[in-house]
């Protein structure tokens, strides 16, 4: 019931956001713009077979990351630092794992909602839905990881300006260098090693390969492990939260 309470609140707020066109525009317009600009502009000139499908997979993955992370971290951060609504949750009898569960679930739903919008747009432009069952699972895993990371950031920041700094210096570079628009192999060798450390690159790999084999099993274990670590860390931070 505790997780449901947190999820219900987040979903109600999400519903009201969706009813304002500005939100829908904000969350999906930029990815769709990328899809059209890169897909239609570079599409036939890039040395990547079926670049349309490649691009859809990358942009869906990126959107799931930004939406899950931003929505959860802003909700927690603003609720803590400005409205004080989050303190109402923290002083309720709901356990920390339940609060964490509710928040992560809300992030997953928000991330998947944005992803489905991009998929729909991609289908209209390129007539493909390039996702296998494992690809979809990897997408869920990706949203879970970034939602959990969003909770951690929302709890840690002491100012919403810090949130903007984190988004600009960590989330945005991750979106551009983790294989969203082109394969990681195109990058210099030293940068590939850095990118290997970024969770989004593993999510992209899993989504694109679409099956568990010797090249994707490491990515699967890493992404699952990181999600679990973030979930536990976020839960502990909520449990030990103090002002």
């Amino acid at each position, binding site marked *: 019931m505790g997780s449901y309470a947190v999820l219900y609140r987040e979903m109600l707020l999400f519903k009201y956001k969706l009813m304002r066109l500005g939100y829908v525009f904000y969350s999906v317009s930029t990815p769709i713009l990328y899809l059209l600009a890169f897909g239609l502009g570079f599409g036939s000139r890039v040395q990547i077979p079926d670049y349309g499908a490649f691009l859809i997979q990358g942009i869906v993955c990126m959107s799931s990351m930004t939406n899950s992370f931003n929505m959860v971290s802003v909700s927690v951060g603003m609720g803590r630092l400005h*409205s004080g609504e989050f303190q109402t*949750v923290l002083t309720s009898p709901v356990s920390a794992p339940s609060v964490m569960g509710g928040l992560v679930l809300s992030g997953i739903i928000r991330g998947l909602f944005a992803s489905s919008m991009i998929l729909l747009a991609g289908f209209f432009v390129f007539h493909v839905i390039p996702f296998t069952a494992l690809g979809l699972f990897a997408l869920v895993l990706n949203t879970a990881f970034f939602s959990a990371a969003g909770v951690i950031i929302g709890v840690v920041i002491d100012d919403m300006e810090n949130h903007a700094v984190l988004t600009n210096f960590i989330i945005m570079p991750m979106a551009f260098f983790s294989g969203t628009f082109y394969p990681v192999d195109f990058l210099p060798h030293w940068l590939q090693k850095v990118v290997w450390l970024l969770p989004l690159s593993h999510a992209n790999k899993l989504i694109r390969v679409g099956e568990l084999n010797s090249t994707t099993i490491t990515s699967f274990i890493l992404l699952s492990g990181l999600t679990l670590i973030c979930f536990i860390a976020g839960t502990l931070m909520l449990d030990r939260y103090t002002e």
Partner: protein
Amino acid sequence: MLLEVMNVRKTYGKVVAVDDVSFNIGKGEIFGLLGENGAGKTTTIKMLSTLARPDSGRILLNGKDVQKYRRDTRRRIAVVSQDMNLGYELSVFEVLYIYALLRGIRNSRKLIDDTIAKLGMTEKRNAKVGTLSGGQKRRVMVARAMLSGAELIFMDEPTIGLDPAVRREMWEMIRQMQADGRSILLTTHYTDEAEYLCGRVAIMERGRIVSMDTPQSLIDCAGAFAVDINSRTLLFRDCASADEYIAKESLTGQKVRQTKLDDVLVSSIGRAV
């Protein structure tokens, strides 16, 4: 005792927010914490409601350490915060429904509607919180506390910024909660509020409790008779002493009046609040 606070201290860096504070609250009691901004009232509430950990000292609720038994504590308390922490996009009903879910109250719809009716807000049931007046928002916050079924309610300056008529309405709601068997810790700037509502009052100054008793005992102890001289107020134990002082100082136009809790507060902390 329902709540026992023993020698609690809290610092933020080099700033001592709460220093060696001790008091207790009995069942069904309204206890007031009075003091100016920065006196340590909100920090005290944060520690009591498990949002902040004391550096030293103990806080027991029903004999159990509130930090050690945080979930149990949270089941027994409700907080009416100073901030309007309601969710401006949500309706009154939704705010209360979410709160009921957080408190684990099942089949809460009727209970919520009854609470809304009790506070005279039935016509605002589906109104967005953002469209409500300050007084109505405060009422929704009180409604949450009423709904919670908590034994002990912390109210952090619940009437701040409200007009006099709405403040008095709020006082009656607080009285009603007491009549329902709840204990209440109320922090306030307003001495008339503390005098009207509180069985006992503690005056806080720079993180410390400087005096604590019933409002009348605090007045009697400080001097039940007062003489205003410009912006100063002198307190006297009896009327004769006050008259004698006026005569001795040849003060013209000054009259002896009954001391108010406000005068005690000013004399306790050494300056006007």
